C-alpha cells in the first residue's frame, strides 16, 4: 500500500490545525471521508480536500508534502504509525505523541515534541524554542521518547523535561535544559547562556565547554561507564550521533543547579 499523501495545494494566510490528520484517526476511512474532515484555519474552517491533494491509502504511513511553517499540531497525540513532513512544519509538531515516528525534512516552529510521551521524532533542519518542553503552566515536559535535531535549536530546549532523550547535532539557544527534572540532552554544537538553569536532575551532555552559571559546581574529571552504553544506543540512528568517532566516556562533571539541590549534571567532553 502506498503512503497516504497530503500534498498542499496552496499556502493559506492563516495557521492550520493539523491535529485531526494522525494515523489512528484516519484508519479505516475512505479518501472521500478524509477529504471531508474540517481543519481549523485561523478563525474559519477548511476541508482537507480544499487544502490538499490526497492520494495513497496507507493511513499508518502519512506523508505531508510541500509543507510549510504554518501547519501546526502535525502528529499531535500520534499513537503509532509514521508521519513524514516534506518541508517545514509549524508549531507544536508531535505534541503529546504517544508512539510512532515523525520525520521532518525541513525546520519546525516552537514547542516541537512538547510533552512527548514516547516515540521518535527527527528534524533535519532547525527547531524553535521549547523543544520537548512543557506547555505554559504545565509542570512536566517530554516524559519519554527520543528527539533528533540535525540543525540548531532555539531557547529553553527540554524545559521541564521529565524523561527521554534530546539529541542536537547543531547549536542550542539559551536556557537549554531549564527546569529539567530528568532525562538526557546531548548537544554537539555550542550552547547559549545559562544551560541547565534551575535543573533539579537530568544530564546535559556537551561536546563543547559551556558558559555555566555560578550555581554549577565542578565535580572533576571522570570516566563514566554509562556513556559507552548510551553511545551504543545511537548506532541505529541516521545521524552523526551514530558515528563511533564522536563517542567519548571521559568528561568534566559539573553538578547543579545548586539552587535546586545539585542533583543534575552537565557533562562536558574532555579531549
Amino acid at each position: 500500500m502506498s503512503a497516504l499523501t497530503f500534498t498542499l495545494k496552496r499556502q493559506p494566510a492563516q495557521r492550520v490545525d493539523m491535529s485531526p490528520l494522525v494515523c489512528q484517526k484516519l484508519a479505516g476511512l475512505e479518501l472521500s471521508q478524509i477529504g471531508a474532515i474540517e481543519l481549523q484555519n485561523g478563525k474559519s474552517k477548511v476541508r482537507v480536500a480544499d487544502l490538499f491533494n490526497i492520494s495513497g491509502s496507507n493511513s499508518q504511513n502519512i506523508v505531508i508534502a510541500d509543507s510549510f511553517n504554518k501547519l501546526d499540531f502535525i502528529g499531535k497525540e500520534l499513537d503509532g504509525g509514521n508521519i513524514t513532513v516534506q518541508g517545514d512544519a509549524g508549531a507544536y509538531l508531535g505534541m503529546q505523541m504517544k508512539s510512532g515516528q515523525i520525520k521532518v525534512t525541513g525546520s519546525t516552529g516552537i514547542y516541537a515534541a512538547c510533552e512527548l510521551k514516547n516515540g521518535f521524532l527527527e528534524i533535519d533542519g532547525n527547531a524553535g524554542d521549547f523543544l520537548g518542553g512543557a506547555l505554559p503552566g504545565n509542570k512536566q515536559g517530554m516524559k519519554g521518547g527520543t528527539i533528533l535535531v540535525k540543525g540548531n535549536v532555539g531557547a529553553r530546549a527540554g524545559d521541564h523535561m521529565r524523561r527521554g532523550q534530546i539529541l542536537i547535532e547543531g547549536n542550542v539557544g539559551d536556557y537549554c535544559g531549564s527546569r529539567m527534572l530528568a532525562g538526557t540532552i546531548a548537544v554537539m554544537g555550542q550552547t547559549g547562556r545559562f544551560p541547565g538553569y534551575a535543573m533539579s536532575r537530568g544530564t546535559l551532555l556537551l561536546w563543547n565547554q559551556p558558559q555555566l552559571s555560578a550555581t554549577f559546581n565542578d565535580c572533576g574529571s571522570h570516566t563514566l561507564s554509562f556513556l559507552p552504553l548510551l553511545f551504543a544506543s545511537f548506532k541505529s540512528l541516521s545521524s552523526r550521533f551514530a558515528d563511533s568517532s564522536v563517542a567519548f566516556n571521559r568528561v568534566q562533571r559539573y553538578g547543579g543547579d545548586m539552587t535546586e539541590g545539585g542533583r543534575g549534571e552537565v557533562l562536558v567532553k574532555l579531549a
Partner: protein
Amino acid sequence: MIINGVSIDKTFAEAFPMKGTRAIITAQNEKWALISAQAMTGFATSVIACGCEAGIERILTPEETPDGRPGVSIMIFAMGAKGLAKQLETRAGQCVLTSPTSALFAGIEGGKQLPLGKNLRYFGDGFQIAKKIAGKRYWRVPVMDGEFLTEATTGMVDAVGGGNFLVLAESQPQALAACEAAIVEMQKIPNVIMPFPGGVVRSGSKVGSKYPALGASTNDAFCPTLKGITKTDLSPEIESVMEIVIDGLSKEDIDKAMRVGIQAVCDLGAANGIKRISAGNYGGKLGPFHFHLQEIMA
C-alpha cells in the same frame, strides 16, 4: 552399556524444578570481574543450606558485554521466585556493588523481572541517577571509586536443578582427575552451572537420616569405606566416588552437559581407573525430571 571399558549404569538422575536467573558482571579487567563473580557465587553449592545454587557460567569477551569491558556470566537458581530475588539482591549488594570497578547487567531478557540494582540504588542516598537507554533502565550509583553502573532488573525463567552423575574409580586421584576433565568440557556448554566447589561434590547424599532432625545424610551405599558393613552399591575394586551436579535453564541444556561430561570421563576409560558411571536415583521421589544415563549416551 560400556564405553572405553567404563560401565554406564541403567539408571537415571533425578532433578527438580527451580527458578533461574543470569547476571553479567563486568570490570576493568577479567581478574576483577572474576573476583566479583566468585564472591557473588560463593557459598551457593546446595539450595538446602545456602538458599540458592550459583556458579560462573563462563567468561565473556569485551565484545560480548554491554559496556565493552571484560565480564563474567553468572547464574543463580533457587526453589522459588521470592527466594531467588532475595539471594540475587543480597549477593549483588554485598559482592558486586562492593567490588572495585564492577558493573552489573541483566543476563536474561524478558520473563518475570527480578530486582538487580532497582533497590541497590538507595545506597546512593539520593545522589543516584537513573538512565533509560535503549528501553532498559540503569542506575548510576556514586561510590568511592567512581560510579557503580547497574541495570535495574534481570529476567527469571523456569529452570531445572539437580541433574547429576557419579564417577566410580579405583582411586581417589583417578576419580578427581576424571571429574576435572568432565568439568572442563561441561563448562563449554551454555545455560548450565556446576554449583559445587570446582564443580565436583564428594559428599553425595541420600534422602533421610537416622537422626530425625536431618532430611539428608551421607550416601552410604556409595561410601567406599563402608563397603563391608552396609548395603553397598560398590564392587570391591571401587575406592572412590565423586559426583557432578548440574543446574540448567532447561532439561535439554542439562542433557548436553551430562553427555559431554560423561564422555570426557569415559575418554579416560578403564585404563585410568574409571570403572562405572552411575547417578543419584531416589526411586523417582525427588523430582519429575529424569536423566537416563544410557539414553543420554546412546
